[in-house]
């Protein structure tokens, strides 16, 4: 095992410990109504009755491998041949344009092959070749399943990003995170079920990347800007600026009392009952949310592990959130306020990609390491990748054009095999040729790992059943542990 894993001296904490600590935390606030939670959870289990809260946990279709998802989203299209898909053949044919790479790209440049400006080394027991710009992630390769045969429908950012995050080229469908929370609920009612984060710029398409579209609003992702985040402002009106906590409790009690008097007159209106519970939850969220988002509560060694980058802070927040039962966290990269960070690769792979890797590599490795140390990696699926990749041929002098024919996505933890590679691009890395994986297949696989059958996770809207995978998708069984 690489030395890296021993850097954090914190004793591992089991999930059970963690949950009971969180529970105690609420108890000590002296505010939580334990009853409210147990009622909610009981309601969910009664057949034929709608759960009182849309976020109450729901049983999966079958035993899941993973319980939570962290998506490390890389908007703009990281180049596969400069990161994880090592292609020495490019150097041998530098400047040439063999038939295999003579396919139209977005800007349809007709240039020849451009060798990666970065060195590659073998890492881990699996001997995976990784670019020198990802030195930290390189130490985790034995926990990672690389999929080199990804492909998607179009080589334009906006549509391809929608495909990756909502399974459709237009932003009119629910996001993957919304589907997951709809399918499984959340394990912590005091936090949003799905949190999306990025430093400064939101990924192109903004809300649609974590939106609920036609699913009920409770399944929408909550967006947090890592750059200007303040724990007490994560949600709108999270903090009461008018009353001290006890006084606020009295006021909330009055509201509950009046609502209960009203409820007594209106027999059997489940909505009213639900609204009383929602108010109690809101009350608790005021304290649970700032606590969850407060990274200052971490030990120095943990903070050191993640390092100073904003993206790394997002990775650390992701760990804190999934630890508290949040179902899905999406952490998108941006740089200098640019919403499709990796697109800087058009002009300059050396400058663009190196800077971007520097901005995220340490945080990503720290997240994998930290999850593993805490025993959370087994049940947490981590997914890394962009909406497409970049061509091995050059665009201009130093850059690369979009490539939707083939690109790399990797997954770790959550029931996938570590240290493996699935699928392949051609010898130069342009097109996926072996064991091709469409984005729909990736989605089907993610849902499968979460215990959901992508063909059965449906929502009826306007007279039709919708799915994340539409009418496509097949589970990639070979990467599952």
């Amino acid at each position, binding site marked *: 095992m690489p030395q890296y894993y021993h850097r954090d001296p914190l004793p591992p904490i089991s999930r059970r410990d963690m949950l009971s600590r969180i529970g105690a935390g609420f108890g000590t606030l002296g505010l939580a109504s334990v009853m409210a939670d147990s009622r909610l959870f009981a309601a969910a289990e009664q057949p034929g009755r709608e759960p009182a809260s849309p976020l109450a946990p729901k049983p999966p279709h079958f035993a899941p491998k993973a319980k939570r998802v962290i998506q490390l989203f890389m908007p703009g299209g990281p180049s596969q041949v400069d990161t994880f898909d090592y292609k020495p053949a490019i150097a041998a044919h530098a400047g040439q344009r063999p038939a295999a790479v003579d396919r139209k790209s*977005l800007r349809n440049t007709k240039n020849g092959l451009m060798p990666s400006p970065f060195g590659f080394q073998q890492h881990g027991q699996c001997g995976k070749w990784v670019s020198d710009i990802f030195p930290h992630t390189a130490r985790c390769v034995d926990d990672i399943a690389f999929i080199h045969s990804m*492909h998607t429908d*179009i*080589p*334009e*950012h*906006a*549509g391809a990003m*929608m495909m990756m995050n909502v399974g459709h*080229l*237009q*932003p*009119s469908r629910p996001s993957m995170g919304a589907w997951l929370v709809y399918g499984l609920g959340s394990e912590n009612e005091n936090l949003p079920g799905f949190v999306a984060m990025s430093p400064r710029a939101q990924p192109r*398409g*903004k*809300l*649609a990347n974590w*939106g609920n*579209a*036609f699913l009920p*609003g*409770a399944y929408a992702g909550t967006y947090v800007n890592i750059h200007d985040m303040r724990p007490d402002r994560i949600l*709108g*009106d999270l903090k*009461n*600026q*008018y*009353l*001290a906590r006890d*006084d*606020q409790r*009295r*006021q*909330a009690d009055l*509201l509950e009392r*009046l*609502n209960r*008097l*009203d*409820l007594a007159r*209106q027999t*059997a*209106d489940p*909505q*009213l009952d639900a*609204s009383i519970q*929602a*108010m109690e*939850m*809101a*009350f608790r*969220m*005021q304290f649970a949310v700032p606590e969850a988002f407060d990274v200052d509560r971490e030990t120095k060694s943990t903070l050191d592990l993640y390092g100073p980058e904003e993206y790394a802070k997002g990775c650390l927040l992701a760990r804190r959130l999934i630890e508290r039962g949040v179902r899905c966290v999406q952490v998108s990269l941006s740089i200098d306020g640019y919403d499709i960070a990796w697109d800087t690769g058009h002009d300059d792979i050396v400058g663009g990609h190196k800077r971007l890797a520097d901005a995220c590599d340490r945080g990503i490795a720290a997240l994998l390491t930290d999850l593993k140390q805490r025993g959370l990696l087994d049940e947490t699926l981590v997914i890394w990748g962009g909406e497409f990749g970049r061509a091995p041929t050059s665009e201009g002098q130093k850059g690369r054009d979009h490539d939707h024919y083939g690109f790399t996505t990797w997954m770790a933890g959550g029931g996938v095999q570590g240290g493996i590679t699935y699928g392949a691009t*051609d010898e130069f890395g342009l*097109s996926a*040729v*072996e064991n*091709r994986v469409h984005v729909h297949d990736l989605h089907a696989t993610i849902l499968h790992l979460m215990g959901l059958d992508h063909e059965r996770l449906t929502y009826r809207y*306007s*007279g039709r059943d919708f799915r994340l995978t539409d009418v496509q998708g097949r589970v990639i069984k070979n990467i599952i542990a």
Partner: protein
Amino acid sequence: MPALRPHIALFLFAFALAEVCPAEDAPFSADQIEFFEAKVRPLLVKHCYECHSRDSKKLKGALRLDGRDLAIRGGDSGSAISPGKPAESLLLEAVRWESFEMPPSGKLKPAEVATLEKWIELGAPWPAEANSSAAKPSDAAPSAKQAAGYDWTKWRKEHWAFQPVKKRKPPRVADEAWPQSDVDRFVLSRLERAGLSPAPPAEPRVLVRRIYFDLVGLPPTPAEVDAFVATCERDRPQAVRELVDRLLASPHYGERWARHWLDVARYSDGHGGFLDNAEYAHAWRYRDWVVAAFNADMPFDKFIKLQIAGDILGDRRDAVATGFFALGPTYNSDGGDPDSVAQAQAETLSDRLDTLGRGMLGLTLACARCHDHKFDPLPQQDYYSLAGVFNNTAAGESPLAPPEAVDAFNQHQQAIKDCEKRINDARNKINNEKREPTPEEQRQLDEWTAELSQLRQSAPPPYATAHMLRDSGASDMPIAIRGDLRKPGEQAPRRFLRILAGDDAPPFDDASGRRQLAEAVAAPTNPLTARVMVNRIWMHHFGEALVRTPSNFGVLGEKPTHPQLLDWLTATFIESGQSIKSLHRAILLSSTYQMSSTFNEAAFRADGDNRLLWRMNPNRLDVESWRDALLSVTGELDPNLGGEPTDRVDSRRRTLYFKVSRNGDVFATDEFLRLFDFPLMRASVESRPTSIVPQQFLFLLNSPFMVERARALVKRLHADAAKSDADRIQLAYKLLYQRPPTAEEVDVGRAYIATAPDSNHLSPWEQYAQVLLGANEFMYVR
């Protein structure tokens, strides 16, 4: 059905050709057959048959390659091989990964591709025995299915929504005392058959709140409540009739009901945030047009026609109505990639067809974009018949002023520019020569400056513009194979849906065809348009529609709970000249509408969903009515109609005037609206969901907006300094809930006010007022 014949014949002809072709081919030589057996068949078996043969578990793309004729006929994407013409054979494109990428598991070797190419070049030799004309009907390509698959007559006869609207005699009922109108007979007869009885009449105080929110989206004042209650005691039907008439005449009626239509129209101020990011700065003119149309009780068929073709059928003002389509997303491509350009155009067309289909016809037309509709009789060709209309239509900003006024304005502006240029040129020349102007030049400059000032003063005001449609062409478009506009199939003549108009439907030949489309959608013989609207109006009064999938009257939609009532209402609506206000009267002046929402255990057990209408459904206010009510009871509401939208949540204007972005993620107003279930305005909205989430309570408990309303309410309650706290609590309950408080409620309130801490920021009364405004009772209509 003679009308159908020519079309069927056409398809049969096409079908027959495909069937006949193989037989015409010359027999292949033994060498050729051997080449096929040795080289080609193994390739097909190995790489294609998993998905493209009789034995495929799931046949993909309706394509079979286990027979020469089957390969020629092809699948959803058209013919797979053209014998002798490798360049025109989709199969080769696919294995070269130029269009499709086949086989998906990995590219064939170049030698294998060459084998297939040679085989097609040879004319695709195949042994005679393997020709499989005996294909099952379900294997047939879609074009064949279209010919054989639709029994239009049967569809029109058997699916309820395609049957003509029939006005049946209202049924007899046992309890003759209950019905106030024919509506009640339809409802009561169903209840009686189920052994259920209707709930008792709602109390006047409850009823008056319900009618106010239903018709104008605002609560009644205590004085209005008292007056209604008093009239009710003398003559309840009279009281209701007068109230309904008065509210239907209120300009606020149009504000309330326009909003329901704006949901159908997926109305927004643009800012899609995607490849549809344009701002629609004048969208509000469409909103105001709809408000005015509802207030004027514009006949609904006219209303519909103007939405589709107001620029052609009406005057310049009516062209604004085409904002119905023009305000939808118009997508661009963000890189100019040809596939993406085609995709953007296809998506824009899909928006128009979906909005037309679900919004007006209750049909999920957009499902027929890539293939024939899987459930409804909507062939893919019909989709492109209608898409062709919008393919010849452009959406953009156009002046509302007459052309002369526009010209005058533009000429005047040009004159100003010319004058400015003369002055600048002269000054520059002098400056460049580094000298003072000569007296002659100075005189000229002074003259021009005076002229400029005069021109500026006399400039006509800028003319108004709105987003609207205009015709841009007059041609049919082909079917897009699998929805891909870059793969044209057969032509789709512009005309109306065959299920509704029959095969002899005249082609749309008047420019884009929008005028004819408008006539067809609004035609009295069209069984859907009026029914769909009547159903929506019922839904907004009862919380649930008679057809509980109000934008889908197709096979997968729900059937009406009261089909005869729906038809009776629709027929009555049409007889009234499609007067929506008359329809409101027909519904509101019924015992059914005026029932209480009292719970009934036995009825609940028999009919938990209240499909039979044994009580009024209690309904949560939508976000607009709730916020408007907050401002109304505190006395802060700005009652003015129309104009530009605001992006300030703390504005005093009605919520209808909030700025809304298509994705709900641009304005502060978006955020507020989304919190309380305002839907995404990206596609036509059939009904509002209600979700209860903790974040709403964070708003109720913590937001400055609620605190401001609480303060305003306290001010209003304390206007009369002589009153006691008990009096003020009385007044608060009457203002907010249209009822006096119970003794217990008064005690609870007084105790709180007496003992709550007097925070610097919020007095006990303000805290109490905030609770009253945030309470459930304020948010519900029962």
